[in-house]
């Protein structure tokens, strides 16, 4: 469903992504790991369509469409979802209202009628149960004063409401307590089917115990330098990134 080819992207003239290649098929889970500053969030942002980044080379197709030609809201309409590493706050806008707008805007994009109040409430109830989501949180202003963990829970709840085809989870596990990780991972697993896929950015192998990846990729200095199965995550946990850095340095010297 997603095919990234030789993707290069700059910010403020500085090249951050330096030739990414990645293929994601329906039903798959891909984990992306890599040291701080490697470009993981940048990749997520470029896929979601953030305007600050300039794509200088390469292409991205999503279900056959040229993803890079679409506006961010159109990408959402096509079924791309990004769980933000740092979700933003919007004072005064209730979380429920925000989600309602999101759900109905996406429906509009797909040519579906807006959900009426009753159907929307029903959907909310259903997903709240699935995600163990607290009603009180949803009536508060969007992310305002939410704890780090609550923000991440809210991201995943929105994912559940929007049922995307591709969910990019940018360090959704950071800031979650051990129970919350399990709840969030369970939620993600319950939403999985053969039609959708997950791209999970994480620093910790622990998340991958729950959301078991088909592939693990290591992003380093704007490139995917190593790909493997979930065993690669264990190896990284054990050895750190040094061994990969060394491998690369040796390659570059050659």
């Amino acid at each position, binding site marked *: 469903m997603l095919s990234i080819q030789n993707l290069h992207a700059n910010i403020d003239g500085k090249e951050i992504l330096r030739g990414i290649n990645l293929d994601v098929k329906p039903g798959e889970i891909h984990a992306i790991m890599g040291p701080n500053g490697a470009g993981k969030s940048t990749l997520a942002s470029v896929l979601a369509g953030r305007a600050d980044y300039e794509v200088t080379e390469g292409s991205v197709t999503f279900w056959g469409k040229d993803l890079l030609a679409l506006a961010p*809201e159109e990408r959402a*309409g096509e079924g791309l*979802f990004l769980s933000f590493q740092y979700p933003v706050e919007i004072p005064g806008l209730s979380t429920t209202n925000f989600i309602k707008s*999101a759900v109905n805007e996406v429906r509009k994009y797909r040519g579906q009628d807006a959900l009426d109040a009753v159907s929307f409430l029903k959907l909310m109830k259903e997903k709240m149960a699935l995600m163990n989501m607290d009603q009180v949180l949803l009536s508060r202003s969007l992310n305002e004063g939410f704890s780090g963990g609550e923000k991440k829970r809210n991201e995943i709840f929105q994912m559940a409401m929007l049922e995307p085809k591709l969910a990019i989870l940018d360090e959704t596990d950071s800031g979650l307590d051990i129970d919350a990780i399990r709840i969030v991972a369970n939620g993600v697993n319950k939403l999985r089917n053969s039609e959708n896929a997950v791209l999970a950015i994480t620093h910790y192998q622990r998340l991958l115990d729950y959301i078991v990846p088909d592939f693990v990729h290591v992003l380093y200095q704007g490139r995917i330098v190593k790909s493997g199965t979930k065993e690669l995550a264990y190896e990284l946990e054990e050895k750190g990134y040094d061994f990969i850095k060394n491998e690369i340095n040796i390659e570059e010297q050659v």
Partner: protein
Amino acid sequence: MKTELEINPTNTQIELDPSLEEVVSGEYKYGFTTNIEADEAPKGLNENIIRFISAKKNEPEWMLEWRLKAYQQWLKMKEPNWGNLQYPPIDFQDIIYYSAPKQKITIDSLDDIDPELKRTFDKLGISLDEQKRLSGVAVDAVIDSVSIATTFKKELAEQGIIFCSISEAIQEHPELVRQYLSSVVPVTDNYFTALNSAVFTDGSFCYIPKGVRCPMELSTYFRINAENTGQFERTLIVAEAGSYVSYLEGCTAPIRDENQLHAAVVEIVALDDAEVKYSTVQNWYPGDKDGKGGIYNFVTKRGICKGNNSKISWTQVETGSAITWKYPSVILKGDNSVGEFYSVAVTNNYQQADTGTKMMHIGKNTKSRIVSKGISAGFSQNSYRGLVQVAKQASNARNFSQCDSMLLGDKCGAHTFPYIEVKNSTAQVEHEATTSKIGEDQLFYCNQRGIDTETAVALIINGFAKEVMNQLPMEFAVEAQKLLAISLEGSVG
């Protein structure tokens, strides 16, 4: 103690998504004119014009005397220039002071209204018939200078409530008008109140008898239609002991290249235990993108909590006018009385607003609350100006003020001028102010969830203004929300 404080936000550059620039520019939706034959006075102002107006309205001698005296005083006064506003001098001789739609005004039967006029109301979304049937809101509509129709009169009369045009009140209830007119806003309060007193042509009058809770929202719609006319309406609300009323005014005007003057006076009197809630949705024509045309809105609104335990609450949503100069105020005379001011002021393009409130604490244990939300976009200037005054004898006065500004873009300005004068040491006065911007992060977050930028701006703005919007009567809150969004269309980018 007197403090003056100006908070000028630094000019931080925000660069927004280039796609935002494609957001279509908003156009004034109420800018149509109506072809109604009008009965007009010649341009200019002198004693004869005032006599003409008074005669047209068949006024008693005392009213004419009152007007002429106001005019003499106005001649000696100077236009105020302390507002943070810039506009060319107004030529008061180039204005038509009286314009009435030429038709028989039958107040009880809506069927006799000129069909053109009825269509105007329809376009405004206030079909009188509809209003009457569906919403249960009583409406008084003032076009140019004259009140056209008052719905629900009979139903209200059964409870002893008087809701009619001020002209009619002068004829039918002269004793009430004489007792209260200019009892809250003296004729010489300022240049524009003196002018208004001399030339006001209509407005609404509302009287709620003792112990009566007005069963419906009372509403007045003002519209300037004729060219070169000024609108000077006068509203007087009297709430007797233990009564309650919620009152709403709305206003629109056609698109004209010339600036038009609107100088209204609103007075509210609340006696013991009475409560008056006054809401305004002000949407006068703001001028075009380049600042051409638009209404000059110089308004004096003041209420007095005359009785103990009384309450006056002003709520305003100000989106229109080229210039807004307006400070709805409350004199807290009765002990334990409460004054509130909730305001959202939106300025876009070249609009300028200098608006706020005065809370004058005189009685004991009086409380006031000020919530002001200013939203500036384009090249506009938006100022909050507020005065909290605590008199010597006003023990235990409390005030809380919250003034928040939001900037869309980097060419507009937001300013806060809070003045505090406290003469009693038991007073507690709190002032908080913030300035924020719609962040690129917030917009991208919304975009990522499928929400386009224009809708995102509306959501964020309505969130920002929520505390004030929540004060509006339900029927109007939705309309006001849309209005905020429309006013800011094309402003981000």
